[in-house]
C-alpha cells in the first residue's frame, strides 16, 4: 500500500509543532509542557538519551524537525512511566515518546541503530501472524537481526539462558512449528487492517487540510 505519510510536510509550512499535534499520538499535549525538567531526570537509560523528553518538547516548538525525528532518544524509552506520574502538567509523556517513534518510523526517519525500531517492528509482525506472540521465533528473529554471522555469535552468548528456559519448560522448541495462536485469525486480521486504514486515512486528511 502506498503510504500517504511519506509525502509530508509542506502543508505545515515549517510549523513542526502543528505537524506533531496532527500526526503524533497525544501530540496535542506538547504545547502544555512548562519545561520544569522533572521528566528529564526520570529516564532509566537517561545517559543514553541525546535529548531527554523535556528537551524534545522544546525542540519541537523550536521547529527542529530533523533533529527530533532522526534522534535515537525516543528509542531509549523503556516504558517505565516514571515521567508520567511525576509531570506536574500531567503530560502523557510515555505515549508521546512512543508516538514520535512511530511517526518517525512511518516517514522513514527512524535511525538504523539502535536495533529497537526494527525489533519493535518484528514484535508487531510476530503478534499479528497468529494473534499471539511467539517468543521463540521472536527471540531468534532478534538474534539474527543484523545477519547470520552476528546472529550465531549472539545465539552462542545466549545459549545458557536458552537452556535454562528449556529446562524449566519456559520455552518450547515446538513453538517453531507454529505454536500458540487464536482461532479467528481471519476476523483478527480484517479488524487490524481496518484500524490501520482508518488511521492512515485520518493522517492523509490532516495533510490535505494542512491542519
Amino acid at each position, binding site marked *: 500500500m502506498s503510504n500517504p505519510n511519506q509525502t509530508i510536510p509542506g502543508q505545515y509550512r515549517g510549523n513542526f509543532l502543528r505537524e506533531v499535534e496532527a500526526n503524533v*499520538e497525544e501530540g496535542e499535549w506538547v504545547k502544555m509542557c512548562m519545561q520544569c525538567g522533572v521528566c528529564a531526570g526520570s529516564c532509566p537509560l537517561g545517559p543514553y538519551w541525546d535529548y531527554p523528553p523535556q528537551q524534545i518538547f522544546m525542540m519541537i516548538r523550536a521547529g527542529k524537525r530533523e533533529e527530533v525525528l532522526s534522534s535515537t532518544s525516543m528509542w531509549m524509552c523503556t516504558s517505565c512511566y516514571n515521567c508520567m506520574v511525576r509531570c506536574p502538567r500531567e503530560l502523557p509523556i510515555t505515549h508521546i515518546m512512543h508516538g514520535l517513534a512511530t511517526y518517525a518510523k512511518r516517514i522513514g526517519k527512524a535511525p538504523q541503530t539502535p536495533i529497537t525500531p526494527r525489533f519493535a517492528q518484528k514484535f508487531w509482525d510476530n*503478534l499479528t501472524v497468529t494473534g499471539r506472540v511467539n517468543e521463540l521465533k521472536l527471540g531468534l528473529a532478534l538474534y539474527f537481526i543484523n545477519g547470520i554471522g552476528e546472529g550465531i555469535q549472539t545465539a552462542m552468548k545466549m545459549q545458557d539462558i536458552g537452556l535454562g528456559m528449556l529446562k524449566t519448560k519456559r520455552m518450547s522448541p515446538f513453538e517453531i512449528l507454529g505454536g500458540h495462536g487464536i482461532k479467528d485469525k481471519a476476523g483478527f486480521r480484517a479488524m487490524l487492517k481496518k484500524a490501520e486504514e482508518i488511521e492512515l486515512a485520518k493522517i492523509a486528511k490532516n495533510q490535505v487540510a494542512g491542519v
Partner: protein
Amino acid sequence: MAKRDYSFYPGCSSQKGASASNCTTSINAICDVLKIQLNEIPDWNCCSASIGYAGGGELPRLTLSARNLALSEQHNPGQDVVATCAACWLATRETTERLAHDDQLFTETKIALKEAGLTLQNKTPVRHFVEVLIEDVGYDALKAAVKKPLTGIKIASYVGCQTNRPFGIAGESFENPLYLDKLTEAMGATALKDYDKKVACCGGALAFSEPEKSQDLIKDILQAAYDVGADMIVTPCPVCQMNVEVYQGLINQRHGTNFNMPVVYYSTLMAVAYGKSASESGLDGQVIRAKQLDALAGR
C-alpha cells in the same frame, strides 16, 4: 465460601511453554485455595505490550485490547477483567480509559471491531490480580489461609514499573508502594523495607534490544537486594521476573560479580505458604532455584 468469578486475560507469556508459564501455575494454585474462579477470555489475543508501537499505530494497538474487552463482554458478562501480567493489564486498562474519554477513537475502534463481528460497550472494570487479592479477599483472609509460614525468609519486594505506573495498585503510592511488603509479611516472611530499588526499571522490553544497557540496570536491582541481606527477590511482573533472574550469569561474566539470587513471583511465595507442592507452586520454573522455598514445599 462461594467462588468469586472473574474474566481472565492471561496473556502470551503465561501460555504453556512460554516464559511466564510458572506464574500461571502458581496463580492457579492460590486461586484454588482462595476460591477464585478465573474464566479465560475465549480466543484472546496479544495486547502488543509496550514495544508493539513501532509497528502498530495508536488505533491498531487500542483495537487489539478492545477485541479482548469485547470478547469478555460477550462470553463473561458482568465479570471484571483480571490480568496477572503487568503489560497486559496496563495495555487493557489504558485502552478502556482512552476509549472512554475519546469519542472519536471509540467510534473508530468499533468500526474496526465490526470486521471481526464484535461490538463493545466498554463498561468493564480492568483490574490487576493483586487488586483482587487485596480488595476482594483482603489481607486478613490471605493470612488466614497460610499453612506453612515463611518464617525467617528475608525478602526484597521488587514491584518494578508497569504494575506500579501509570495506574498502580489502587490506594498505593507510586514511589513507595507497600502492598508487596504486606503480602510477604502476611505469608510470615520478613519484608526488607529498606530495599531501595523497589520501583526501579529493569529495562523492560529493551532488555532484548539494548541488552548491556538494561543489564546494568538489572545489576543495580540485584546489588541492592544483596546489600539489604535478601534471601530472594519477589515480584508481581513477568518481565521483571525474567529479566532479573535470567541475565545474572551474563552480568557475572561482564562485571565479575557473583549473583545467584532467586527471583520469584508473589504467587509462588503464597502457594508455598498455602501448603502447595513445589511443582504446583511453580518452583520448577525457577532458573535459579529458591532453595528455602523448595525445602518448605517438600516438607
